[in-house]
Each structure stands twice: as structure tokens, then as C-alpha cells.
């Protein structure tokens, strides 16, 4: 257990430079987005008000005011979220392959640690998952700050409405995806994320065990895992059987747990018995 925690910590430290960069990029880009977005709106509004000699109230009726949803839809705001997502998906692969390739073969050391191969597998999964949650946590922390900054910039007369953090999240499809609106939904979304990651990890283990043949095996495994998880949906779509919503939910939760367990077991088995360094 202690070695597993040490390994998680080790994996996090290894990625810390890129990770801190991602955090900083998100923070800076979104703050810049808030400032630029607000400024450009205010300048435009001011120009039009001067040109047409109208009051702020008249401007709002004619052209509409501003609220945080407009800021949250900008590239400045969503770009770093997309960048972080892509980086972490990419790192799912890199977290394994960087140990095999590159100048040093760290995989020798890793596999020769006096700890179960399962904890090596799990430590990498945990590290990535924690880093994903860390990014979400940062977004949750900076969102109210950005919102406060925005509200302090915009005069009340031009503001459509002062929004709460949770309503900003609800109104934005990207934010709503990464920060689900209820805790149950959060558990489900990130549970599915964990399952997907375990499937990918195991596909990578197939490749590392059987090389070219392993790529095919990995793809087949991914297909089977996805088919198993989505089986009730396919059954419904083929109209051969109808599940009540709560049954569908229950079956898919169970299947999700089974698929995740199965791929973790298979992945660590491959890492223990079949992987070649």
C-alpha cells in the first residue's frame, strides 16, 4: 500500500512540469479571456452609445447586455480546457510508453520493484485520474474568481444578470461536460471515464505484450469491452427488448463495474505475465 502511494506520488512528480504548465495556461488564458472579452464589449458599447447618442439603458434594449455566458463561450476560455483534455488523453499512452522508449529504460526498474504489478498499473491510473480531477478542481476554484472579476468590470446597467457559479456551469456545454450538474452525475461521468481509461490501459498492455499482434488484440478487447458495456443499449435499439430506465441504469452500472474490473484484472495480469521489456 505504501509503495502504491509512493508510486502515485512518483508518477505525479514526473508529470508535474507539464501539469503545472497546463494549470497556469488555463488560469492565465481564462483571466485574459475575461478581461479582453469584457473590455471589447465595453468599448464597442461605448462607441455605439456615443455614435447614436443613446443611454446605457437604450443600448441594452437595442443591442442586449452582457453576461458571463458570453465570456465562457470564447476560445480564451474553452481553449485551455480542450488543451488540457487532449494533453491528458495523450498522457494515458505516454505514461506507459515513456518508460519503454526514450534514452533510459525505466520500465526495468519499475517492473523490478518489490511491489505487485497491479499497484504499478493502478498507480499510473490513479495519477492520471487525480490530475484530471485537479484540473476540474482548479476550474471550480477560479470560476467564481473570474465571475467576480467580470462583475466588478461591467457596470450594472449593462449587465444582463449576475450569475452564480453553478448557473454558469449549467449554461455552458463544455463546462457542463467537465463539471456535471449533480454529484451523482459526476460519479457516473467520471466512473465512465475511469472505465474508458482502464480499457485503454489494458489495450496498451496487449500491445506491449504481443506487439503488432497485440495492437489487433487491443482493438478487439476495446471493441468487446465497449460492446459489453453498451449491450443493453444495442438490445433496446434492435427493439428486441425494452428496459425500464431504472433497469437500464442498474444494468449499465453493473456492466460498467464488471468491464472496469475485468480490464484492470486483465491489464495487470498481462503486465505480470506477458509483458516483455
Amino acid at each position, binding site marked *: 500500500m505504501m509503495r502504491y502511494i509512493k508510486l*502515485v*506520488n512518483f508518477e*505525479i*512528480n514526473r508529470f*508535474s512540469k507539464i501539469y503545472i504548465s497546463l494549470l497556469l495556461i488555463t488560469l492565465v488564458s481564462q483571466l485574459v479571456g475575461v478581461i479582453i472579452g469584457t473590455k471589447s464589449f465595453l468599448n464597442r458599447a461605448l462607441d455605439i452609445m456615443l455614435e447614436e447618442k443613446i443611454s446605457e439603458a437604450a443600448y441594452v434594449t437595442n443591442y442586449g447586455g452582457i*453576461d458571463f*455566458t458570453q465570456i465562457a463561450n470564447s476560445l480564451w476560455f474553452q481553449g485551455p480546457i480542450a488543451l488540457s483534455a487532449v494533453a491528458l488523453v495523450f498522457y494515458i499512452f505516454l505514461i506507459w510508453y515513456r518508460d519503454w522508449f526514450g534514452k533510459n529504460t525505466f520500465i526495468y526498474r519499475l517492473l523490478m520493484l518489490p511491489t505487485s504489478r497491479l499497484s504499478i498499473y493502478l498507480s499510473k491510473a490513479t495519477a492520471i485520474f*487525480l*490530475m484530471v*480531477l*485537479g484540473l*476540474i*478542481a*482548479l476550474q*471550480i*476554484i477560479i470560476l467564481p474568481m473570474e465571475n467576480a472579476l467580470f462583475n466588478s468590470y461591467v457596470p450594472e446597467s449593462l449587465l*444582463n*444578470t449576475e*450569475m*452564480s*457559479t*453553478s*448557473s454558469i456551469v*449549467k*449554461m455552458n456545454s463544455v463546462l457542463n461536460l467537465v*463539471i456535471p*450538474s*449533480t*454529484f*451523482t*452525475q*459526476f460519479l457516473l461521468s467520471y466512473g465512465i471515464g475511469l472505465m474508458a481509461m482502464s480499457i485503454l490501459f489494458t489495450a496498451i498492455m496487449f500491445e506491449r505484450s504481443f506487439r503488432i499482434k497485440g495492437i489487433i488484440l487491443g482493438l478487439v478487447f476495446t471493441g468487446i469491452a465497449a460492446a459489453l458495456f453498451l449491450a443493453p443499449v444495442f438490445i433496446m435499439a434492435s*427493439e428486441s*427488448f*425494452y428496459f*425500464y*430506465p*431504472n433497469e437500464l*441504469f442498474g444494468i449499465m452500472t453493473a456492466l460498467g463495474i464488471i468491464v472496469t474490473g475485468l480490464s484492470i484484472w486483465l491489464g495487470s495480469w498481462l503486465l505480470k505475465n506477458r509483458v516483455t521489456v
Partner: protein
Amino acid sequence: MKRYICSIIIVMVVILSIGTYYVKVASSASDLPKYTFKTLEGSDKELDPVIINGTHQGNPIYEPLTIESNQTTYSSEKSYFENFSGIIDLEMEKLTKEYRSFMRGKDSIDSFYEDDDFLAYASVNEDFTKSGKKEAEFDIALLEKKSEDETSFNIELPDQERIMNTSIRDVQLIHSKLQVLTTNDVNSNDEKQTKEVHLYTIDLANKKVLSDKILLSESFKNPNQVELEIPIDVARIQPNNMILISLVKGIYHEDGPYEEKPNEGKLLSYNYETEKLETVKLPKKETDMVRGGKFDGKNLYVVDIKSNNYHIKTIDLSNQKITNDLELDLAVHKDEQYFATIKNGRVYFLLGNGTNQQDRAYKPAQLHIADLKTGKTLYKGETVIQSADQKKTKNHGFYIEEIIVQ
């Protein structure tokens, strides 16, 4: 310890921020205002069976809510499961609970028929073959309640080349034959549109369609419009010998609004037993109120807005006479929406949808409950908005969508 600082920070931040966020989200529903009825007259016990579905519009987020037995519940307060199962129709919920296996994969309450012995179901299933040809068939199912015998089969929809789409409006079981009443849109090659009411008679024992009778066929061209409506049945799935069909005509004015032409519409009744289709001759004043009316198989209840106060009129369809005229102690507001329903021998009448039409601000809706026979007012009340933070209610809107009585 220094080596662990990065991980410790991440774990702490993750737990604290995500934890706090969802705790706040979970408790935020309690910050939302509560809508309740303030009793002005009568006993608030009368409110127990009343369910009102509506939306709280707290700019810019809309929160669906239900006022049940005078308690506001936001859908965000309900558990994930409660929102997930998503059955809102009380009759469907009751059927699903009782006949779980039979009800599997079946929806739309109009497709069902229930008596003491049988539960019957009919729907039309439209599919496209690979060549792009449409194939429509009836899905028929019958449950014999005592023996729990289930029969289900498909039959081709007769004359389906002619028909664009079919929607089931009523299902009855008359002398062991299933009667399926549908409104159909007919395929056409020119501008002419045709809407029809069909009555399919299905022989359950031999699994075939015995007849396809066109009860009504109405053709029109743009900008004229025809709508075929079935006045809301207060007992949609129970045995009924009679069904009402309301034909509403209207016109799209060029660059203008849609206008209904109430005088050109008509109300028809069809009797499954006698197989007679008759035009219901209503007193002139009532014809335009038929759409908002309720029908219980024998009587038609309509709301009359032509007097000073709202009137609920009971029309006996066997002799087409007004048998009861109930005057509510409530003045007519022409520009206000109203909701009316008949249940438990009472009239439930809700005036206003909670929103002021001019400035979209909250405006109390008034609920009257009266005894249908005696006309005695049993309850009078109006909605009140209660919020922890009164300032916050300023920009809040409320919108009532429907009233249901259990």
C-alpha cells in the same frame, strides 16, 4: 515529506473544491423560492390531491418544479433516480407498477384500454425498408388480468400507401373486438392536404383487421388549416362507448397571425356501440370552448367565459342539453390563461399561469375548488412566493404548465 507536497496539494484541493462545490449545488435548491397556496377560504385539505407542474425562472436558469399537496419540490432536489425514471403521467405510472412485464416498451396513455378483465394496447409502428419504402403495422397486445395471459401480435396497417402518418387517439374493446380510433394524415401529390379520422376494428382471436372505416375526412389548402382534436377525456383508458372529435378550422393570414374560425368548427360524437357518428349541437355560445373542455364519456364539461364570472357547464351528450351551470366566484379575465379539470366530483379551476403577460413578472395564480353538483366553493386560494432572500425574488418568474388532480 517535501517530495509528496505536489500530490498532497492535488488531493486536498480536489477533495475540498469538488466536495464544497457539490455540497453547495445540493443545498442551492433550498435557496430557491417556495411556491405555495395561501388559503383564502375553505379547507386546505382540498389541496392534497392537487399537483401543479411548473417552472421557476430564476434568470437565466429554469428549474422545473412540482407543487404537490401544497409543497414545492424542485426537480434538482429529487434524487437522480427519481428524475431518471421520468414517468410523469400518473396513469402510466399506475399501470407500470401493476403490470410491469406487460407495460414493458409501451407508452402513450391514449394507446391503452383497461376494464375489469382486460388491459389492451394498440400502437402503430412505422419503419422504412432498405429500399426506402415505408412499412407501417399495428402493434397489438392484450393482457387478460385474471389468468395473466398475454397475447401480442403485429398486423399490417391496411391501405398504408395512402397514409402519411397515423396517430392513435383512442382504444376500446367492444364485443371482443378492438376498436382503434386514429387521426391520419393522407399522402398527396398536390397542395391539397387531407386529414382523416379512421376507425380500425381488429379481431383479436384471428389477428386481423376486420374493417377500416373513415369516420371523417377533411381536405384543405393553404393558408387554410384544419385540426382534429379529441377533447380531453377525464378517464382516458376506461371503457367508454362514446368519443368526441372536435374539428377546428383556421387560417394563416399573410404576414399575420394564425386565426381560428370558431364558427366553422364542429364537434362530433361517435358511439362505438351504435356505430353512429353525430354532430353535437351545442348552444352557440359554447362551441368555441369545446377544446378546453373535459369529457367523461357521458357529459361534456366546458368553461364559459362569456359572462362576468367563469361558468362550468355540464352538457349531457345523450340529449345534448345543459344539465348544470356552475358559476364560479371568479371574474373572467380574458387575457389570462386558465386551467380546469374535473375530478372527484369537483371542479378544479386555476386562473393565471403565475406570470404577468406584460412584464413577465410573477403574478399570483388563483385556485378555486368547487363541488360540481352543488356549486359550493370548497376552497379558494392563491399562490405566494416565499424566499429566504426577498431581494432575490425580484427578477424571478414562475410559469405553471399544468394542473393534475389525483
